[in-house]
């Protein structure tokens, strides 16, 4: 079965693997492993890539460029055969995964009996991979719907207990796998109408799992749904493999399964991509706008090809509606390219595009420009271009940018982009829906800045208001989302799930603030999070700033100065005399290296056990002289 079709094929991956294996330096082998993980690969090739990477990762589980993550797999079936492909998919999605695998069938014991090995591992993510053959609901076939519902409610309560344990003991994010129906039909098409038929039971249980997961903040690995979509072909739950080795997912499907799991893991630590960059000619419409003119391009009702392009535009528009930023990168004259958006059948409007670059420069350079315009990393971009040569050049020049291999027919573009899982979400909040507008507003702000002769006048003219609210239920999902995806303006890059943020917010001696910013151009949404609590390891009586992070969209506007003012007031109100801040360099947060000294903090000795390279900073509240800014502050 062909898997990972969005990844480009390699000319001779076997030879490349053998060559990489001969490299003596483990770090070089790891670099090669990461590179080769980005190509289409079958399960034996994937396992060889895993072996290439393992030496370097066991020497240094925190290599540059990869986010380390400890994942415990607790299952009711055998998963050993999937581990290499999960790790390799992790590399491809910029994760260095350490995995703990409980003996199969021992998932309850592992969580309920305080398994010492699991305790020592201290998982950040717990994956519960269950299957339909595990502890079947004991019901006679003639059981009523009411009896079925009682049995399912009992099973859901048991699952929720396991989820709770994982969160309370480890503050771990839980990922629950749905159950793939495996039993052959007893009643044929009538199956679903018999409440206690094997199929109806599993179907109902999955629906209940999805609902409970939504309420409890558990993420889903929805294998049942993926199986129903035919994602794994007929290879899931092969009876031979089950009888032979208790495998639900055979080794041949491990590259796909590994990627399905790794993309959720990557999303949970903020590594999903943020921006879809689109080529224009023969990507968004048929034909060449510069040659054919607005009337001459193929788009919209009336021709099958035109409808296919329109369907792709509609998919892009829906991605924008859920918070993916859209950009254009095209070889065209700017005015000609923009004029195409006046075509009556166009589903995307010019205003949907947050960064529009059309010129005759090379696309790699233009993609850099787009990342700068939007204040996001190149590793947040997905570049879609029908031209294989352009794709190839961008992959070579900018390996950080994801460039999906595309099918020949534009009708298949939406499914291919979706299958690649670039934009895996772990939450969906009101701020997401306004993102396109917010980036468009930012472009206006930039234009206003270009026109303003002095910075102070510009900032004053923005009429900014910062609203600081204690993090409560309403702010929790968005706050956790920001905590997990902010890399640049982030002093400590601590990653917390909702459960852990809640725990900090509930600490009576702590301060947990969600910061929102509005200005005359509109609402920037939740743009910052401040978490502070006493930390006896650092200083006995001080308020320790555990996390300070901010969206880069509002950089350079004095928000950090206004935020400090909020924090100072909250700390004094809580009876503190001192603030202590920490800066942990990560390779991506260099922009905040001078954050504390700039705000008037003085260097403070690093406590025992501090992260190597971390610096600590002290602020005397009695002698505080807040810096000036142009932001009105509101506390709620």
């Amino acid at each position: 079965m062909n898997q990972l079709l969005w990844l480009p094929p390699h000319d001779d991956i076997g030879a490349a693997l053998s060559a990489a294996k001969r490299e003596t330096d483990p770090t070089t082998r790891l670099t090669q492993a990461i590179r080769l993980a980005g190509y289409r690969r079958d399960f034996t090739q994937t396992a060889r890539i895993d072996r290439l990477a393992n030496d370097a990762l066991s020497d240094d589980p925190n290599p540059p460029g990869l986010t380390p993550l400890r994942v415990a797999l607790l299952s009711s079936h055998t998963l050993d055969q999937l581990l290499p492909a999960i790790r390799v998919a992790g590399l491809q999605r910029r994760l260095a995964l350490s995995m703990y695998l409980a003996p199969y069938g021992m998932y309850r014991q592992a969580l309920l009996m305080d398994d010492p090995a699991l305790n020592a591992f201290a998982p950040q993510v717990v994956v519960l991979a269950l299957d339909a053959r595990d502890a079947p609901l004991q019901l006679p076939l003639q059981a009523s719907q009411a009896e079925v519902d009682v049995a399912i409610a009992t099973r859901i309560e048991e699952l929720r207990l396991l989820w709770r344990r994982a969160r309370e003991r480890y503050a771990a994010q839980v990922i629950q796998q749905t159950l793939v129906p495996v039993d052959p039909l007893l009643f044929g098409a009538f199956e679903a109408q018999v409440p206690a038929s094997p199929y109806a039971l599993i179907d109902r249980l999955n629906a209940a799992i999805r609902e409970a997961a939504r309420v409890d903040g558990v993420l889903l690995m929805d294998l049942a749904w993926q199986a129903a979509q035919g994602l794994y072909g007929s290879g899931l739950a092969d009876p031979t493999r089950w009888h032979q080795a208790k495998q639900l997912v055979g080794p041949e499907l491990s590259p796909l399964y590994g990627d399905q799991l790794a993309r959720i893991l990557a999303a949970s630590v903020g590594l999903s991509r943020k921006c879809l960059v689109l080529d224009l000619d023969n990507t968004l419409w048929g034909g060449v706008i510069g040659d054919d003119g607005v009337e001459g391009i193929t788009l919209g009702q009336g021709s099958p090809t035109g409808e296919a392009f329109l369907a792709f535009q509609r998919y892009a528009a829906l991605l924008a509606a859920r918070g993916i930023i859209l950009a254009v990168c095209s070889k065209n004259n700017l005015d000609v390219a923009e004029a195409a958006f006046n075509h009556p059948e166009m589903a995307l409007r010019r205003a949907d595009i947050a960064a529009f670059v059309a010129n005759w420069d090379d696309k790699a350079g233009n993609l850099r420009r787009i990342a700068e315009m939007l204040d996001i990393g190149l590793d947040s971009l997905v570049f879609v271009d029908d031209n294989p040569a352009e794709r190839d050049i961008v992959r070579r020049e900018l390996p950080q940018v994801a460039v999906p291999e595309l099918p020949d027919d534009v009708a298949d573009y939406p499914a291919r982009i979706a299958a690649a899982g670039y934009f895996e979400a772990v939450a969906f909040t009101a701020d997401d829906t306004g993102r396109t507008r917010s980036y468009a507003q930012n472009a206006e702000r930039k234009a206003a800045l270009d026109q303003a002769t002095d910075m102070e006048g510009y900032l004053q003219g923005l009429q900014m208001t910062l609203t600081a609210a204690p993090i409560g239920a309403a702010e929790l999902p968005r706050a956790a989302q920001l905590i997990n995806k902010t890399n640049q303006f982030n002093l400590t890059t601590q990653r917390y799930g909702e459960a852990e943020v809640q725990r900090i917010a509930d600490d009576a001696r702590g301060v947990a603030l969600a910061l929102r910013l509005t200005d005359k151009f509109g609402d920037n949404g939740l743009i910052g999070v401040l978490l502070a609590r006493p930390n006896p390891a650092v200083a006995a009586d001080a308020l320790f700033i555990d996390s300070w992070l901010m969206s880069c969209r509002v950089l350079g506007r004095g928000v950090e100065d206004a935020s400090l003012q909020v924090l100072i007031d909250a700390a004094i109100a809580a009876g503190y005399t001192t603030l202590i801040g920490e800066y942990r360099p990560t390779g991506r947060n260099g922009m905040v290296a001078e954050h504390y000294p700039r705000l008037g903090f003085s260097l403070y000795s690093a406590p025992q056990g501090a992260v190597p390279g971390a610096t600590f900073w002290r602020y005397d509240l009695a002698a505080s002289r807040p810096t000036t800014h142009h932001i009105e502050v509101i506390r709620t």
Partner: protein
Amino acid sequence: MTEADVYAALTPVFHDVFDDDSIVLSPETTADQIEGWDSQTHVILIVAAEQRFGIKFRTAELESLKNVGHFASLIQQKVH
């Protein structure tokens, strides 16, 4: 497919699965003689061979595999 053809095609499968290009197969080769050939990699080897030759082994056949010679002759019977 001759016996030689089967060995010629099966050898690279072993090379890939055990990540060792120096493996030379003979009919007498058993799991003990190849590093890393355990119950886990056995399933992987079976699946890799199924994919390479476009065949499927029956559950019972998987229980009785003794050595590479047995494995190869089973493959030869299944490939037409």
